[in-house]
């Protein structure tokens, strides 16, 4: 008997349900980017080190390069595209812009998902807790100074209209 090398997976991403046949070895990040065309989620390494691919899967923060697509079968997934509603930025997104917490913007989607997860579970984090909350995300542009400032501002509700 031939081994099974592909499977049909069903995922709900940002409220929309998708069904796709994927190779068993396909990474979740490639399902999201290549099959669902949600290209806001990025790839920055091949060792699970950089966090550019961070998404929220069933309420947990996950590096989507460290999960096979088939492992996400049935899951509810949130990506950066699901944050703003009708073009209305979330306070965190607005705070990132207010505080110049992004330069090239490549790490930003993953950083925003980690920060979203952090503030959901700890709405009033200290500086050290913010840094710990994003320590799985590499940014090579900002030195994290303004990212930490932005997350703090969002937690305090100090964002521009």
């Amino acid at each position, binding site marked *: 008997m031939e081994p099974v090398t592909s499977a049909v997976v069903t995922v709900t991403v940002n409220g929309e349900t998708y069904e796709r046949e994927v190779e068993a070895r396909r990474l979740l990040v490639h399902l999201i980017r290549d099959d669902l065309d949600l290209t*806001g989620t990025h790839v920055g*390494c091949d060792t699970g080190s950089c966090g550019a691919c961070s998404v929220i899967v069933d309420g947990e923060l996950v590096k989507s390069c460290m999960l096979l697509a088939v492992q996400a079968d049935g899951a509810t997934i949130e990506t950066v595209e699901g944050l703003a509603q009708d073009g209305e*930025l979330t306070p965190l997104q607005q705070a*990132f812009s207010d505080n110049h917490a992004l330069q*090239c913007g490549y790490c930003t989607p993953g950083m925003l998902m980690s920060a979203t997860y952090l503030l959901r579970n700890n709405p009033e984090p200290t500086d050290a807790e913010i840094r710990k909350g994003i320590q799985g995300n*590499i940014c090579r542009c900002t030195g994290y100074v303004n990212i930490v400032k932005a997350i703090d501002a969002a937690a305090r509700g100090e964002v521009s209209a």
Partner: protein
Amino acid sequence: MTTIAPEGVEAPQKGFVGQSVPRKEDKRLVQGQGVFFDDVKRHGMGYVHFVRSPYAHARIRSIDVSAALALEGVYGTLTGDEVAIQTDPFFEMSTPPGNEIKDYALAVGKARFMGEPVAAVCAATRELARDAAELIEVDYEPLPVLVDPERAQDPDAPILHEDAGSNVVWSGLFDWGDYDAALAEADRVVRIERLHFHRFSSTPLECSGALVEYERATGQWTLYCNHQMPGVGAIWMAPSLRTGIDKLRFVTHDIGGGFGNKITLHPYFVALCLLARKLNRPVHWTEWRTEQHMANTHGNERVFLDVEVPVKADGTMLGFRVKAIDDAGAYPRYEPLGCIIWSQVTPGCYRWRNIRVDFTQVCTNKSPTAPNRGYSRMQHLWFTERVIDIVGQQLGIDPVEIRKRNYIRSEEMPYETPNGCIYDSGDYARALDIALDLIGYDSIDERRRDAEARGRLLGVGIGSTLDSGTNNFGQSQLLNPDLQFSGNNEVATVRLDTFGEIVVTLGTVPQGQSHETVASQLVAELLGVTPDDVHVRPGHDSFFNSHAGFSGTYASQFAVTGLEAVKGATLALADQIKRLAGVILGGVDAEDIELVDGFARIKGNPDAALPFMACGAIINANNAGLPPELDDVTLNCRYVYRPPFQVPDKERKFGNLTLTYATQIHACVVEVDPETGVYEIVDYAAVDDCGKRIHPQIVEGQVHGATAHAIGAATHEQFPYDEDGNLLTANFYDYHVPHAMDMPPLRTGHLESPSPMNSLGTKGMGEGGGAGVHAFCAAIQDALRPLGAPIVDDSCNPYHRVWETIRDPERSRSLVRVETR
């Protein structure tokens, strides 16, 4: 004139220039709507994977692609043999024998570094392409390996490029002032046997790549890519592909960081062009992280030997002599430009007039080098700062005192260096005072005692850096008089379209530097509108017709070249709008028209006004009956900015090599555990002076980022190779970049010393972070002084190296000798 403002306090200004307006780029990027090259897809495209050499040096006996081609879903392959037939070697910039080196898109005959691409395969999916790559059989004959640049000229050293017959890429003597007289005049001579600047890379988070399409009808390739210097990329690629520059259309949109590492992508892109043509389908290649570390590019490694510093009894340094060996890796792709770029900052921040540098660049079996944030100047400035701190320590002169005694003074600006460069403006001593203030230097002795009480050693270090910006490419002729490059240029177009849209295109290729925002500020101010009214097209497209030979974002120049081009085009447009409005409003002279709030109106008569929309509509869609004096009015203005450069004197290696010099003075406070060598940066200040700041928040962001790169490089980031030429840090597991918890608290300050060299008073900036490497090394040396006064002789000091320095202070101390006369 120099002004100082504390952090976070901005003087209110009229207009938009100088204001931290909201960034135009952010809205798409925070919503995941940025367009990075890997996001671009085409019907039927194939994914490319490169087969790479596992050996640092090996002859390629044969390559068998048959098993890969037999795999279902594989579209085709490319090997070095095909490349050698279908392309010419890339243009080499060096003189003989360095210019005899043959560099192709894939290894031809030999692989010369671990990770060098020897074949490529294209298949229906990323995964399949990797499978197929594993099926390509390459028969290698391993050869002796050269990893140590200091051994490259040994008689028994393996030769990388037989055509050149030598591992030397370039060598030359730089001799300015009268070094021998300075040596004779010295009261003391400090000699340092060896200093080493290590290999690392700023490793942009987005890896390199492209989607390449070939159009048979026209023979044209379109490259959706993240090349950060397409003008020069095309100069490399077109002759190799035996085609014209016009056949290479580069398109970039958002780029996930560059830092110089996306300048020498031409070998990969030529391979992709060949595959797209051969397979008649779009081909897509995204570099994997491990590939970027192994085989993209690294910053230059440099060894400084036989350093000699003549000093007067009062600590005045008269100059220096050094023998530098620069390691270019396996192929001198952007090199040997690094052999001259350092001389933009020959005396560093100091009044040293007598300098002799014997500079040699060699090949080794390591990844090729290329510009990396602070390219070639960082290495040299680290050297000058090490000299200052080592000499200071030997002579018992305080690091602040010895700097102030030797810094070039603000009243000497503009200052001509011994090799003819013009430092345009700056106040280094004042910037140092601000940095010291920010770290609380006044109470440092107390903090030293406090640290000691806790069993820690406290050290303070200063790093002084110049960020030379806007290259004069004529400096290339100091390396090779036959090269036909000089000056610099940048292009912008500004257009008023049919419904009054103001549309700007830039030749620059930003990778996070906020060019859309900054350009819109200047255009808005000059046209009397708001930045929201100005549409700046993201990225670069050769079809925009807004580029020239040196277009790109590199070498700290946008604030000068990019903005001068924007300004020139905007002023031309403003003039056309005024002339048009003058005619329409009844024959009013253009000088009597003003542009306010989106209207061209008669001065003193605001009711007589023509909206921009009407101007755009008249020229573009309703132009019958316009008088002949408006024949040249197109409302579509292109401007090419050329900085005022001359070709330098080739004999003396003398002339102005860069237009502006931004200053960065950093101060770093560390605490070291003497038992383990583990340290912590407990205080850090970065003071920046880049002349007129168009957008202070963006400038500060660049300072933060550059500082983080420096701290990463100084503490952990390194690309070491074992004796067989295996890279030991090929991914982010082993190559540790700073994470949020690694970054110390940063304080920033600034001065504004406007540049007299351009109309905006701006200076390129963003590459001054090297100051952090210098400051950290100095701080460690200062902290370890009570433990036998070792010196820091390497630019990278992870915990274990600090521990080794503590354990054996004599090793590094013995590198330094002082002769008293």
